[in-house]
């Protein structure tokens, strides 16, 4: 059980008969797929893939878990995650507002590497399993703190039909329709 070098050489140039035969092979395989195409196409957005739970899509903040450590902003490779300071009431002393910092995210820059989610010590950030969301303008893509706490509306789901993409032994990829919420 060890890797090794395998010296090989090409088959020699063949005769005319071989040429005719391989031409026939070519045509036969073309006709084979012409008759039975075994398509892989996903007719997006009529159908859209329901991605797996571990998919690294949009990142959402659960604010009450956040401990303001700024680790997410520090590890962000594309400087998409930023910290802002907000005044908010202190649960212990409701009369005295306190200064706290929270992350906000700029989806113009985010590369969905998921470092922030993985670095968060309290799991205050999580991924949703979609990322095909459209914006009217770039400014909107800089989420403020409120937007960061809500999962964005998944408009594709309104008009499309979800399918789950599976690996198939004969056909490569197949689409299996899933019911709503399934």
């Amino acid at each position, binding site marked *: 059980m060890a*890797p090794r*070098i395998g010296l090989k050489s090409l088959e020699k140039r063949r005769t005319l008969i071989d040429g005719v035969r391989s031409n026939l092979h070519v045509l036969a395989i073309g006709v084979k797929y012409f008759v039975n195409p075994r398509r892989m196409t996903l007719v997006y957005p009529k159908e859209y893939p329901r991605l797996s739970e571990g998919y690294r899509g949009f990142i959402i903040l659960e604010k009450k878990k956040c401990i303001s450590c700024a680790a997410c*902003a520090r590890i962000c490779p594309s400087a998409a995650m*930023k910290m*802002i300071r907000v005044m908010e009431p202190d649960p212990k002393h409701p009369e005295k507002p306190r200064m706290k910092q*929270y992350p906000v995210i700029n989806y113009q820059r985010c590369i969905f590497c998921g470092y922030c989610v993985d670095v968060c010590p309290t799991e205050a950030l999580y991924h949703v399993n979609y990322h095909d969301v459209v914006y009217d303008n770039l*400014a909107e893509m800089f*989420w*403020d703190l409120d937007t960061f706490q809500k999962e964005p509306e998944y408009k594709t789901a309104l008009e499309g039909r979800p399918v789950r993409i599976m690996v198939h032994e004969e056909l490569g990829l197949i689409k299996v329709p899933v019911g709503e919420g399934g």
Partner: protein
Amino acid sequence: MSGAELVEGPRDYEATLKAARARAESALREAGISFSVEEGKGFVDLVVDVDSIVKAAEALKNAGFTHVVSVTAVDYPKKKSIKVAYHVTSYLDPEIVGGIVGLAVYLPREAPEMPSLSGVWVSAEFMEREVYEFFGVTFKGHPDLRPLLLIPELAEKRPLRKDFVVREESIYEGVPERVRRG
């Protein structure tokens, strides 16, 4: 050389590196070139004088080092020098195949100049052009010394020298007013 001598199975890189280093050192000694050794993890640099580098390169080439894998330049502003290392290795010699040995010189930071080794190792040609544009090292005798990746105006700035500073944004910067208000 026959096929049996060549690489067949997995190899011990440390042994290869040791052999390559011994080969290179003896080649330089035979050529009567003095050198000092700088250790690294996975390679070794042999530092020679700029006047003897062509002779050293020829000696290494004759010792079986077929090609350059990297012309690595590092800027040391504190030492006022730029180190240019030709990391070379061999494809054809089974004893030292893959072992990386560096042939390095220290050049003054002001007007660094050294003879081109692309006459010895053809594979250095494009990499020398790269060092030229990023560090401003002039290679005398290079067949075609012009910037490779950059446009000439940008190459004038010698972007990989340490005095070309690229500043990273802090984690509080770049948040628009709308978002900062929370």
